[in-house]
C-alpha cells in the first residue's frame, strides 16, 4: 500500500489542510476502489470516500505510528462501507446485471477496462445474492486481492469466520454461474 511520511501526518495533526491534501491524493483511488466494489454504486462510493477522509482528519491523533498508515485508512473505509451495507435493506439485482455479466464473460477483449456502471453491474450480478459477510469476504479477497489475514485485519472479522464466509460465497457464486450456463 502507498506510504506517507510521518512529518506529513504531524503537519495534518497540527491542522495543515494542504498536508492533508497529499494524503487525499495518495489514497483516494485505493479507497474509492474498495468502496465502489463493496457498495457497487459510484455515488455511494464517493460519499463513503468523503466520510472516510473526514473521519481520518478528525482521528489522526488516534493513529498508531507503528502501524501501516495505508492499512489504517483502508480499514476505516471498509468499516464505513460495512455500516452502509447494514443500513441498506437488501441488495437488489438490477435487470441488466445478468446481461452485463454475460457480456463481460464473453468479451472478445478480456483486458478491456470496464466503465464504472458496467463494472458495478457485473459485481452486483455476482454478489447480490450473498449475505453481507460473504460479500465482504469475496470483495476483499477476490476483487481486492488481499490475503485472508489482511482482509481479517482491515474488516475486523476473525480470520476463521472470514475464511468460511469466503468458501460459502465462492460456492454460491459458482452455483449461480453454472445455472447461468458457465462452466
Amino acid at each position, binding site marked *: 500500500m502507498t506510504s506517507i511520511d510521518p512529518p506529513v501526518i504531524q503537519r495534518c495533526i497540527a491542522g495543515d*489542510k494542504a498536508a492533508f491534501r497529499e494524503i487525499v*491524493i495518495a489514497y483516494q483511488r485505493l479507497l474509492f476502489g474498495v468502496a465502489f466494489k463493496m457498495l457497487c454504486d459510484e455515488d455511494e462510493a464517493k460519499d463513503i470516500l468523503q466520510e472516510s477522509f473526514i473521519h481520518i482528519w*478528525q482521528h489522526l491523533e488516534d493513529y498508531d505510528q507503528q502501524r501501516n498508515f495505508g492499512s489504517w485508512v483502508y480499514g476505516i473505509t471498509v468499516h464505513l462501507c460495512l455500516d452502509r451495507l447494514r443500513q441498506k435493506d437488501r441488495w437488489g439485482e438490477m435487470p441488466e446485471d445478468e446481461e452485463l455479466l454475460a457480456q463481460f464473460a464473453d468479451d472478445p477483449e478480456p483486458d478491456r477496462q470496464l466503465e464504472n456502471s458496467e463494472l458495478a453491474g457485473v459485481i452486483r450480478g455476482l454478489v447480490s445474492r450473498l449475505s453481507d459477510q460473504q460479500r465482504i469476504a469475496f470483495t476483499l479477497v477476490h476483487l481486492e*486481492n488481499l490475503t485472508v489475514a489482511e482482509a481479517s485485519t482491515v474488516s475486523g472479522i476473525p480470520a476463521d469466520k472470514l475464511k468460511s464466509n469466503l468458501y460459502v460465497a465462492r460456492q454460491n*457464486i459458482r452455483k449461480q454461474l453454472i445455472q447461468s450456463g*458457465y462452466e
Partner: protein
Amino acid sequence: MNNQIDNIFDRLQKQQPELHDPELFADSIIAALPDRPQKSIVHPASRRKGVILILHTFSSVAAVLLLVLFLWQSYDGITFHETEVSPDYSSQLAKYQPQFDLSKDPAQQIAQYQERKQEQISQRNQMRSILSLNKTTH
C-alpha cells in the same frame, strides 16, 4: 475445472473503477473538512495542584469520618454503662428491703410495706426518668 468461472474471477481482479477528475474531488474533500478540534493543554504545574487539592480533600473527609466514628463509639459506650448500672442499682434497693417482724401487727406491717414499696417505685421511676433524660442529652 470451472475454467470459465475462474477466468471471470481473475479478470474481475484486474478491473479498477475510475475516479474521474481526482484533483477536483480532492479539492471538494478538503473544502468539506471541519476545523480540527483544539485540545485543551493542561499545564503540569496545574495538574500537580489538582492532585494536591484532591489529596487534601480526601484527607479532610477521612478526618471528619474518623471524628464521627469516635463520637458514635463514645455515645454507644454511655448506653452500655447505663445498662451495667441498672442491675446494680436494683440490688442496692433490694439490700434495703425491710424484713417482716412476726411480733408486730401483720396488717400494719403490710400497710407500711406497701407504703414503702410505693415510695421505692416512685423513686425508681424518678431515677429512670433522670437517666433517660441524660441519655437523650448525650
